């Protein structure tokens, strides 16, 4: 399986009410929610996977802003959804890998910043 890991570096000012002891969400759930809403990933299965297949499946995501280095957080996804292989096979000039990477990076950034 092909895996992509997107890490974000810099400074992070958390929203206190979203990351205190009572917080119910983490980067995993927020990254997944954003991915589903923007139709880059889906928890549901489809009997017709050729129609709007997801770009990736979720592996891991974690906020790391309290650690020693400057990394704020990371997300890891699997690209086994099928679109990459199928598109590459049908058109060698189609930049499927680049397409997946751009959306994954945007989602990680959205989830970390918002």
């Amino acid at each position, binding site marked *: 399986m092909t895996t992509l890991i997107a890490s974000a570096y810099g400074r992070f000012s958390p*929203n*206190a*009410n*979203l990351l205190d002891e009572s917080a*119910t*969400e983490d980067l995993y*759930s*927020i990254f*997944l*929610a*954003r991915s*589903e*809403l*923007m*139709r*880059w990933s*889906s*928890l*549901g*299965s*489809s*009997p*017709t996977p*050729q*129609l*709007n*297949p997801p*770009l990736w499946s979720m592996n891991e995501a974690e906020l790391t802003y309290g650690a020693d280095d400057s990394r704020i957080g990371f997300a890891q996804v699997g690209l086994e959804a099928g*679109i990459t292989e*199928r*598109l590459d096979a*049908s*058109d060698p000039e*189609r930049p499927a890998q680049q*397409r*997946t990477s*751009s*959306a994954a990076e*945007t989602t990680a950034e959205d989830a970390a910043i918002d």
Partner: protein
Amino acid sequence: MPTLIVEVFGGMFPYADRVGPYAEGELWGIFMDRSELMGWTTSFSNPGPVLWRIEEGELTFDTDGSQIGFVQVGLDTDIGASELDPSNPAHTSYEPVLTEAEVAELDEFELANAGWAPYPEPDRPPHTDPSVAIPPMLQCVDDSLRWFGEIEVSAFQVTGIGVSRTTMPHAFPFVSVPYWFNTTTTRPRARAQVTVAADVWNANMAADIAANLRRAHGRWFEIGPLTTAPPEYAAGPDMRSIEWGRGEPSQAIAVSLPEWTPSAIGWIIAKLFDATLSHNPDMRNLSVRVTRSEG
């Protein structure tokens, strides 16, 4: 072919170096670029799995009225193109909105203001479910408009023409999506009015829609009560081929959103499309407008 039109209303302050003298056509290109970068469409001619095909897009902030711009897409993914049945008229032909004789009788003013029309393409099932395409489409329109300048959005309107809910079980529920809106402790909520127009309408429809939304949204979206909206909030753009039903008089659903963003607005419009089309299988044309309430 199923068509979605997203209209954005409010105010726009364009960047001088990004809006040229012929700006009206420039939204098409930026929307296309953004859609392709985010994986929602492709400019390649080969059939591929995408959410939409772009048909039109225009900036309209410098014209009369409060509309900033609009984008029109087709939900035909071309996936079924190789499976077309030449003997099935639905796969190989389409009915024009006006006959050639009717077009010949239009005067110059009518030709210039003929209004919206679906793009004349043969129907090629399967289509993207409108409720799947709406949230990313609103996000993409918003992103694209902000490329041209600062905007303050007062309303989004989504109109589906020739749409129907697909039988795909992947459309809803999106199990994880509500987590995105679990931010009510840090952001001010937004009050808005939702108006609906459809080609199939009955007296109980607004109440039914509100009840369906209330059941579906839980604590992050507050739905109801039914209220009366100003006439300018009415959904349903003028279209020669569609007679909209809207309820009496200017019926609206009051809502409270966790945030005034394309994501929250797109989510509630998508849920409304899903619920309404599911409960009205004969409905093919549906328009929903979400207008922010003042105060």
